[in-house]
């Protein structure tokens, strides 16, 4: 064997993935079981996202890969390199220029547009898993739309902490039907899921599940009338590099005396703003 097939996977595997993706799009928020393959990177490191991306890519695509919002984190670099090699696609760090974006743990700050595909890497696709470890049980709960256990758990949070104590992987309801795990994005990103012009695909390789949010799908973060959902981030901080007030911020420890600063987690967003500021200044 001298070379791998376009986009690495064999054609039969891609057909299987493509059928699963279409069913996922047809049933927004429902997790379609698929026959996940062993990939040349470990389970838990984006194999689901990689398989979904491989099934979607065409040679004309421009691919962006981010991890924690950054293009140059090691796993993002590794996955981007993989597709540049096996699919020969162009790559970019600019959100606006990408046709396919594979992400782990963030949705880019730059609003997505029609025609873009955002592929999420998902570790645990089942939003009810932290309430009930058995697949046989959670499958029935979804089938019967029996989500009382989730409501109870969230209300227990409020009783104990005064609010729903979930900061990321905050569960959502899709089109009033399926409860869905949005992958471990910070809840700050949840509003971006709703009514997005882009197609959002979710791949969980180890757990063998694909699910989807078609464009313009209604996605609501779970909450209670008297305890409405809030998309929080670092309170009262702005990015120390670009001054953004509206972006999700990472906290960086700067010394051993409690010194810290906050910077954009989305490196492309931050760099684009800095470049624009430099241009304005010139």
């Amino acid at each position, binding site marked *: 064997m001298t070379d791998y097939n*376009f*986009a690495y996977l064999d*054609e039969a595997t*891609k057909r299987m993935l493509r059928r699963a993706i279409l069913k996922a799009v047809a049933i927004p928020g429902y997790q*379609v079981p698929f026959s996940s393959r062993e990939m040349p990177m470990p389970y838990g490191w984006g194999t689901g996202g990689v398989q979904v991306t491989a099934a979607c890519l065409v040679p004309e695509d421009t691919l962006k890969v981010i991890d924690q919002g950054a293009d140059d984190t090691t796993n993002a670099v590794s996955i981007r390199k993989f597709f540049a090699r096996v699919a020969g696609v162009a790559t970019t760090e600019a959100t606006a220029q990408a046709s396919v974006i594979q992400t782990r743990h963030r949705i880019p700050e730059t609003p997505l547009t029609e025609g873009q595909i955002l592929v999420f890497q998902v570790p645990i696709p089942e939003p009810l898993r932290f309430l009930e470890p058995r697949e046989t049980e959670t499958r029935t709960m979804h*089938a019967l739309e029996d989500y009382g256990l989730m409501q109870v758990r969230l209300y227990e949070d409020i009783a104990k902490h005064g609010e729903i104590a979930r900061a990321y992987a905050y569960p959502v309801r899709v089109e009033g039907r399926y409860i869905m795990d949005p992958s471990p994005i910070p809840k700050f990103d949840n509003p971006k899921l709703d009514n997005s012009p882009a197609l959002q695909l979710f791949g969980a390789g180890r757990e063998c599940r694909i699910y989807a949010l*078609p464009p*313009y799908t209604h996605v609501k973060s779970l909450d209670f009338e008297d305890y409405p959902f809030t998309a929080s981030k670092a309170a009262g901080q702005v990015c120390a590099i670009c001054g953004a007030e509206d972006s999700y911020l990472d906290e960086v420890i700067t010394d051993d005396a409690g010194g810290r600063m906050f910077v954009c987690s989305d490196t492309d967003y931050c760099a684009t703003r800095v470049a624009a500021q430099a241009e304005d200044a010139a």
Partner: protein
Amino acid sequence: MQLTTGFANPPVDAARAFRVVLDAMAHPARIVDLPPIEAPAPCSPAAAIVLLTLVDATTPLHLAGAHDNDAIRDWVRFHLGAPLVAPQDAAFALGDWDALGPLASYPQASADYPDRSATLIVECAALSSDGVPLTGPGVQTEASLALPDIAALQANAAQFPRGLDFLFTSGAQLAALPRSTQIGGA
């Protein structure tokens, strides 16, 4: 026996075709163009491309009416290897609306596994946006598509999350109607 050709470069041709079908499924009622391809009559080029992209030995296929002919059966055997089956065992079905018959005869899937329903490839004389108003996931405000049987398709959508998904084909054009789309009154 003469077999019309399949994809010239399967990995890339199938990838491009899938993106077009995905675009259609993600935007119900949007009429999209597929590349022209030689297809055994009366199969449309669009339907042939869908089959080449999605169907293989693991997906039972039902050929309905005029599409159940020697030329198409040979083509399916050679290019897809899909088992040819009756409606109740089909993962995919191909034919004109009338020939496909009652929707209830196809697998509708269970509440546990709603993905296990059939996808029907419905051959049409033409695709037209002059039709009933459609709303739901994938539709920004409102879309419309001429549909063959509104009542039957409304009944299908009412089963959500169970139900069939449809790919309407004509020539090299295609439009999708997933079960999630709500169909307005006639």
